[in-house]
């Protein structure tokens, strides 16, 4: 099943056994901005949706019947009344299920760059004060500056599969941060990643990670697609290596999503974009393409069989995903409302849905 969040509602797509035919359900909440839709991989039942509707406040909806009916969170992610910085949540942009040993725990990333946690499957949410009220938070987040067009945000909430107390988050802007005590204390994790939009590009924080991923079978390896390139880190070392330097020079290594093969920690897919000049965010030279590495970034191969010769869309940070089949299915959604699929690990592409609103997120779930 694919879960699609768009600027004007959500859609669910169910595949037949060989993934050739897809049946859509939707629109769900037509007209509402749906940032993210995620099915709980622990119970295969609870589905959460991050929504903001026009000028109304942000909220989270929950479904336990595969999206047939939805209930609003009793207490959506929000700061405490009387917050010292008078902050309010502009939108909830990212949803991450918690550790497999902690059913009911989820994390939400929001704009501004803050973190929230629920322990009852999304009904009531609390601020993770260790991060949101950290003495350095205002500096890390450069608050109240808005650095991205839709508002600065916290994304890529990652829970180490070996340890529920070990968390990573990405801040656009702000950088990557790590906690080893369940969110009580945090530290920047940005050595080696550039922030070349600053006078001093080698900084402790202030970078702009677009998406950060950890491989569940090799949890000491992190990948990130950053505003300033594609990186990999091997823990416990804390230094990012720019594996995007191995991309073709005329394509570059700018983009938003990065997705990992579920069984091979050396395989990752990216969707390069034009990060030159005024940052059009379209494909380089208007030629849509996916690039895959099979050797952890040492080399990259272009995958554009079936994609249009020319198109002028963008693929947003949450709008690419993979499934768990063999061979792996790879999917991406575009700002022009097209949903593309490959059932041979990127070898060939075909559209499986067109004429949707601007696509914000694409997630796969084993339903």
């Amino acid at each position, binding site marked *: 099943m694919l879960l699609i969040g768009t600027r004007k509602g959500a859609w669910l797509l169910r595949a037949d056994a060989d993934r050739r035919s897809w049946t859509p359900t939707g629109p769900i909440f037509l007209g509402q901005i749906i940032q993210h839709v995620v099915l709980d991989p622990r119970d295969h039942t609870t589905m959460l949706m991050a929504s903001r*509707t026009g000028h109304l406040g942000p909220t989270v909806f929950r479904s336990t019947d595969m999206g047939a009916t939805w209930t609003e969170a*009793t207490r959506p992610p929000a700061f405490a*009344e009387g917050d010292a910085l008078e902050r309010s949540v502009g939108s909830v942009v990212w949803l991450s299920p918690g550790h497999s040993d902690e059913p009911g725990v989820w994390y939400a990333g929001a704009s501004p760059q803050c973190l929230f946690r629920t322990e009852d499957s999304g009904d009531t949410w609390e601020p993770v004060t260790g991060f949101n009220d950290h003495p350095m938070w205002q500096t890390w987040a450069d608050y109240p500056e808005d650095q991205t067009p839709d508002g600065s945000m916290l994304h890529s909430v990652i829970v180490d599969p070996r340890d529920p107390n070990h968390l990573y988050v990405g801040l656009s802007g702000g950088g990557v941060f790590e906690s080893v005590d369940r969110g009580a204390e945090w530290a920047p994790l940005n050595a080696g990643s550039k922030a070349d939009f600053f006078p001093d590009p080698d900084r402790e924080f202030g970078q702009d990670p677009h998406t950060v991923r950890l491989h569940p079978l090799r949890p000491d390896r992190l990948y990130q697609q950053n505003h300033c390139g594609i990186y990999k880190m091997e823990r416990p070392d804390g230094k990012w290596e720019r594996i995007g330097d191995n991309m073709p020079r005329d394509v570059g290594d700018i983009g938003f999503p990065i997705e990992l093969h579920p069984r091979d920690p050396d395989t990752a897919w990216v969707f390069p974009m034009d990060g030159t000049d005024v940052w059009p965010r379209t494909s380089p030279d208007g030629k849509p393409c996916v690039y895959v590495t099979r050797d952890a970034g040492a080399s990259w191969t272009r995958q554009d069989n079936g994609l249009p010769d020319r198109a002028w869309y963008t693929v947003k940070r949450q709008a690419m995903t993979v499934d768990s089949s063999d061979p792996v299915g790879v999917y991406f959604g575009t700002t022009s409302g097209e949903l593309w699929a490959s059932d041979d690990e990127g070898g060939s592409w075909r559209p499986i849905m067109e004429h949707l609103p601007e696509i914000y997120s694409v997630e796969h779930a084993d339903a």
Partner: protein
Amino acid sequence: MRVRIPTPLRSYTDQRAWVEGKGTTVDELLRDLDRAYPGMRFRIVDEQGRLRKHMKVWINADAVRDLSTPIDASDEVTIMQALSGG
């Protein structure tokens, strides 16, 4: 008092355009409405008690942004959300 609900919020009121509410200030009225229609207030007012941008409250013919503005049971209140955007 009678309160007019804008279309984006009528999912909370079973699609009713007009509902009854009570309170001596706008804030009390919105909290009363939230008891009857859980979740509605947070869509109108943020967690710091500020009317969200592009949301408006009218008391009879007067637009107000201060939630401590007094209201009377005989007033008619309109909650309005701008439909700007695309």
